[in-house]
């Protein structure tokens, strides 16, 4: 298998089926969340963003952003952005375990099963309902100006979406501290002159350049290029981790060991069901151990 064939096989294995369980669950949760938000707030615009809208969804990292923006003069959820964030959070906590993120609210079941959904509360900056302000719980600035449509278009029309899916898989597999949004911006920037290259060449270039530039690179938010400072999302620890892991990936690619970067291509077509595969793994265990609970 050539590197290009291998990467394409990885992408196929990461494709979500429209009629699959993941999409069904997402749709169900999306309806439930919107219904809950509407029980208290009838006015905000509720829209959907995230990797589905951007065309970068993968099986191991599929997220839905539920955007909940109040009109510029609407104070039904509070006067300040922080009030809006807190009040929407309180409402969601009636039904969900809510994990606060800098500008979004991650939803989990009461037993903390992740639903792959972020609710993003905010307020439109003016009557045009285009740009919005979000509360930001970390960083120096407590306010972030953003634009959902600009973000979606920036990624969707980047010309390197397959590469972005692989970058996302690499980030998720390695649990990198950098946010997906920031890493996507970096990747689009690094690959801007490589859109016509084959995927394997794009990825080789991406890892080599990231290893060389992660110490200094600071992407610009396309929705507010001069206003949003993303540098606090790239502190020394994050930059160090990116440099080290990109260099490691680059070295493995140089050794033609792509599997060490993205893992083996999952076996398909042998008809063996998951429980049977797992039982086979159980039979292969030579030193059984039992879990406990404190």
């Amino acid at each position, binding site marked *: 298998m050539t590197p290009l064939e291998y990467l394409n096989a990885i992408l196929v294995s990461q494709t979500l089926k429209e009629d699959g369980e993941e999409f069904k669950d997402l749709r169900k949760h999306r309806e439930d969340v919107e219904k809950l938000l509407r029980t208290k707030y009838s006015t905000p615009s509720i829209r959907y963003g995230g990797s589905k809208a951007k065309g970068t969804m993968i099986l*191991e990292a599929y997220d839905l952003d539920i955007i909940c923006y109040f009109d510029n003069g609407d104070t039904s959820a509070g006067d300040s952005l922080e009030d809006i964030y807190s009040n929407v959070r309180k409402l969601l906590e009636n039904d969900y375990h809510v994990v606060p993120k800098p500008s979004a609210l991650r939803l*989990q*079941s009461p*037993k*903390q*099963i*992740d639903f792959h959904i972020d609710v993003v509360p905010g307020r439109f900056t003016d009557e045009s309902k285009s740009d919005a302000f979000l509360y930001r719980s970390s960083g120096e600035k407590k306010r972030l100006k953003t634009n959902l449509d600009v973000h979606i278009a920036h990624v969707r029309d980047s010309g390197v979406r397959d590469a972005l899916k692989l970058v996302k898989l690499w980030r*998720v*597999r*390695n*649990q*990198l*501290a950098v946010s997906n949004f920031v890493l996507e911006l970096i990747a689009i920037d690094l690959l801007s002159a490589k859109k016509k290259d084959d995927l394997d060449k794009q990825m080789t270039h991406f890892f080599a350049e990231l290893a060389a530039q992660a110490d200094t690179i600071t992407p610009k938010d396309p929705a507010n290029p001069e206003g949003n400072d993303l540098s606090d999302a790239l502190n020394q*620890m994050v930059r160090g*981790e990116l440099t*080290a*892991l990109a260099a*490691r990936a680059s070295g*493995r690619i140089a050794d033609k060991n792509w*599997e*060490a*970067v993205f*893992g*083996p291509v*999952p*076996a398909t077509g042998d008809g063996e069901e*998951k*429980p049977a*595969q*797992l*039982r*086979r*793994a*159980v039979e*292969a*265990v030579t*030193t*059984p*151990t*039992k*879990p*406990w*609970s*404190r």
Partner: protein
Amino acid sequence: MTAPAPAERMAALEAELVADYATLHLVEQAGTLRIRGSFPVKVGEQVLTWFRVEIALPAEFPHALPIVWETGGRIPRVPERHINTADGSACVVLPDAFWMSQDRAEVSLLEFLRGPVHNFFLGQALVETGQPWPFGEWAHGASGVREHYAALLGTSAPEAPAQLLRFALQQVKGHRSCPCGSGRRLRKCHGDLLRRIRQRVPADALRQALQRINTGK
């Protein structure tokens, strides 16, 4: 021999780790070494599923066990799934049982990952499909500790596990009555077991086990 400097220790651990686990890496956070990434559940070279993890190496490592968290929001945070609800950590193994399976009171990172951690996540993947834990499970809390030491002694006498632990923590002579309740002297009964426990289970782990049994927690 002096202990390796933190940077050297980190590099040595990283080298050991990545040879087997390409998707795990080490980071230092607030003075603690942590392993982050995705843990593969494998059969041969085939990866059946991945679990996102964070694993902290305590300052006492390798004389204390790593602490494992599943960070992907895949496992419910409930004791029935062997998750400690207080801090979300995974109870991958009963420490006392693990130490007894080792030759000495030290843990090898790779053996810990290949053994208890792999078995734990393999079990979780099976339980997700509605099947039971493949190798059984220990009772929760103090009951599991008692169950383990009672099994080693081959007795169900309620006082026996605590007495065994007290003996392990003291310099007890072989003429004492064996804690298993057989009526025989220790040296003629479970003296070898007591020696193995002292060799393999760190004293801190023994003290914790005794405290759990005494307090029932």
